[in-house]
């Protein structure tokens, strides 16, 4: 297909599946329409053709076409599911870029601090993982040229991975109806060769990177008052955050969760939901107090306190 470029590793695989679906669909349609046309011409009421004896053992036909249908369907299921599951397992060294959606705008924050509105610059041939959240309603980040899309939900982090394989500029759409100006919530994804991407990053200087901005917010919102840094203060009221990211956290209700981005985010906006074992439910909720963009910076800063943590 010429009209829609295939610009990611995933896109060509999805296209192969779509071609297979097209071939199977055409085969079924040709079969059905051919039989239909043959029967309605051959067996029209005034046709003298000999009808012979009507078949009686319909169950042979029934089991045959039920079985054949089932087999084809199972094959399609395995193909589609396998590809889908692989899309959800991005490589460990993926470049993590943050996306915040709001009515009716996409805001992008690069780990090194660059910001974009309704645009996303990514390097060519490098795995990228988007970490996405919404400030209001449900949106959806969709890039047809990459054959990817995923809903962006308020109050939680959803991820979407891709590896762009062709330099160029591709449309970005919000595809989950999000209110009056839904159709204006579009943008572009710009894929640059690595050198040009580095140059682009350099052309967009920033006051501080995400970690630095997060550190400032960490102090401004008073986090440091309770979650004291370093070993010199015995933290009694609140658990320490150094080395937390990526580790299992035992909770007071007996469960154990992994401290991923979603856990860090949720622990700021709804701290009472997952109390760390051995601590009391003291922390106030910051829901509505801190914007999703600032939350991202805080989470990034807390992540940076675990130097050896998985990227």
């Amino acid at each position, binding site marked *: 297909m010429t*009209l*829609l470029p295939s610009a990611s590793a995933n896109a060509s695989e*999805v296209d192969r*599946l*779509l071609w297979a*679906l097209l071939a199977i*669909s055409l085969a*079924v349609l040709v079969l*059905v*329409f051919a039989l*239909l046309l043959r*029967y*309605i011409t051959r*067996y*029209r*009421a005034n046709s003298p053709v000999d*009808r*012979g004896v*009507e078949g009686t053992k*319909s*169950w042979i*036909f*029934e089991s045959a*076409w039920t079985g054949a*249908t*089932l087999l084809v*369907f199972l094959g*399609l*299921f395995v*193909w*589609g*599911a396998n*590809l*889908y*599951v692989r899309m*959800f397992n991005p490589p460990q060294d993926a470049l993590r870029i943050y996306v915040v959606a709001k*009515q009716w705008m996409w805001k992008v924050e690069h780990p090194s601090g660059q910001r974009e509105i309704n645009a996303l610059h990514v390097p060519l041939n490098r795995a990228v993982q988007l970490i996405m959240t919404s400030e*209001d*309603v*449900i949106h*959806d980040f*969709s890039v*047809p040229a990459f*054959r990817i*899309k*995923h809903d962006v*939900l*308020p*109050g939680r982090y959803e991820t979407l991975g891709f590896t762009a394989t062709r330099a160029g500029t591709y*449309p970005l*759409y*919000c*595809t989950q*109806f*999000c*209110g*009056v100006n*839904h*159709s204006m919530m579009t943008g572009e994804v710009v894929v640059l060769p690595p050198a040009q991407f580095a140059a682009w990053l350099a052309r967009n200087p920033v006051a501080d990177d995400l970690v630095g901005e997060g550190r400032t917010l960490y102090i401004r919102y008073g986090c440091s008052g309770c979650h004291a840094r370093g070993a010199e203060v015995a933290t009694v009221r609140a658990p320490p955050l150094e080395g937390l990211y990526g580790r299992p956290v035992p909770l007071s209700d007996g469960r154990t969760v992994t401290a991923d981005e979603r856990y860090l985010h949720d622990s700021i906006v709804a701290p009472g*939901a997952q109390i760390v074992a051995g601590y009391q439910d003291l922390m106030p909720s910051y829901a509505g107090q801190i914007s999703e963009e600032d939350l991202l910076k805080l989470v990034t800063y807390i992540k940076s306190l675990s130097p050896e943590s998985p990227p």
Partner: protein
Amino acid sequence: MSAESADIKIPAAAVDRSYLHDGTSLKSWLLTTDHKRIAILYFASITAFFFLGGAAAALVRFNLITPQGLLGSPETYNRLFTMHGVVMVWFFLVPAVPVTLGNFIIPLMIGARDLAFPRLNLFSWYLFMVGGTITLWALFVGGLDTGWTFYTPLSTTYSKGHVALAAAGIFVAGFSSIATGLNFIITIHRLRAPGLTWYRLPVFIWSMYSLSVLLVLATPVLAITLLLMLLERLFHIGVFDPAVGGDPLLFQHLFWFYSHPAVYMMILPGFGVISEIIPAFARRPIFGYKFLVWASVAIAVISFFVWGHHMFVAGTSVYSAVLFSILSYMVAVPSAIKVFNWLGTLHKGYIHFDAPMLYALGFIGLFTIGGVTGLWVAALAADVHLTQTYFVVAHFHYIMVGGMVSAYFGGLHYWWPKITGRMYPEAWARIAALVMFIGFNLTFFPQFILGYLGMPRRYATYAPEFQVLNVLSSAGSTILAAAYLLPLAYLLWSLLHGKRAPQNPWRATGLEWQTPSPPPTVNFIATPHVTQGPYAYARPDKESSAKEPPHGEAHE
């Protein structure tokens, strides 16, 4: 088991006059408990809703002729596609065949005098009208811009439209569905004519039965979901809103738990209608009766376990997506069985191309296209690309409009002589069927391509490269609109000027054809006794059976 017993006295007047002449005052219509008259009330309401929803669709297509949007206002556009969806789903597609054709034909087909609960039946119509009026009022006075899906937190917190009122109307209309479902289930269990065993029931009755089970089991979930959404919107109780600890995905789970079975509520009656028309005009017993019957039941059961396939990119777990994908393929198997069985019925038949048959053949073609494209969106990785684009719009319109609406028109033409006692102009009816098929394909086929190219749904404005296909689609929709207005004109004309219909114009075997057209208020002058299966069509080439043996006979 018989509905009647010998000691019931039938008033002489009721035998002589058709149900249409049994009282002519407005009161005799508005307070009737005759299932046939209630069906006529429903016909009037459903037709009004269909043309209202159709007008909204026409304006949607009008807007999309240019990339900037001819209506000029995204807000107006959003309200229009929401109105189209809400009206068409809840006030046309789900009720259409059951409350009109079903209401009229079920008792006649099973040899009963009425539904089990005639007064409940009338009450259902009033509930439907109250719900419809409330919703329409919300749509017209305040406007609604959430789409028919009411996703939270857009509907609960951010939309400025009249969400609460519209949802209240749908809530009320839901009880009409539940009451109708109960009425049908009990009627089919208790009021079958003597000798009419389960395996002698026409496939239409089995479809109505499966549909009724869906109505009764799924509609309460919709009621609960809408109620929760209302409470959330009015009092912010925190069920769906993440800002107060809720989960917006919970709404989608609950909503689709109703709305996916609802898709089958729309199409199962269509299957039933087609399964009556094809044997009647192919002059052949239906192929694989038991497979068709149990396919309907299987669809009804499996349809409750596939709702998650609406949420493959919504943020549910990968494992649940895999599970829902395979279940979605499973639910497609019985539908495929049905298509093969209809083809099998045509094989070695004596096929007549009367208008109902043209609609039925159109149904097979369009439903098959809708069905195979369902395989695309059930394949997980393909769905990620295609969902929320025009591909999905085209796919479900092929099922709902190409399939269900074709079936509705097929059934309407098939039973029109029975319902009104008049024949429609056959030539016009054939032309309308043909134009509808052409207009439909021109409207919706380009949307498959638009979807692959990535054009999102529900966009008031779009990128210029999508314009050619959108113009094609809009052009097709004008042909489709004309094709829908044609039957309105010639069917109304036939009410006054159509030829008088004989008792059985199609020489069909169903019990409904063993009573005058239009039937007397009591349906049957004498209780029919059923002695064989429903599709005992004789082969015209055998001299011994030049005359069709009817499904049952009326014993004097």
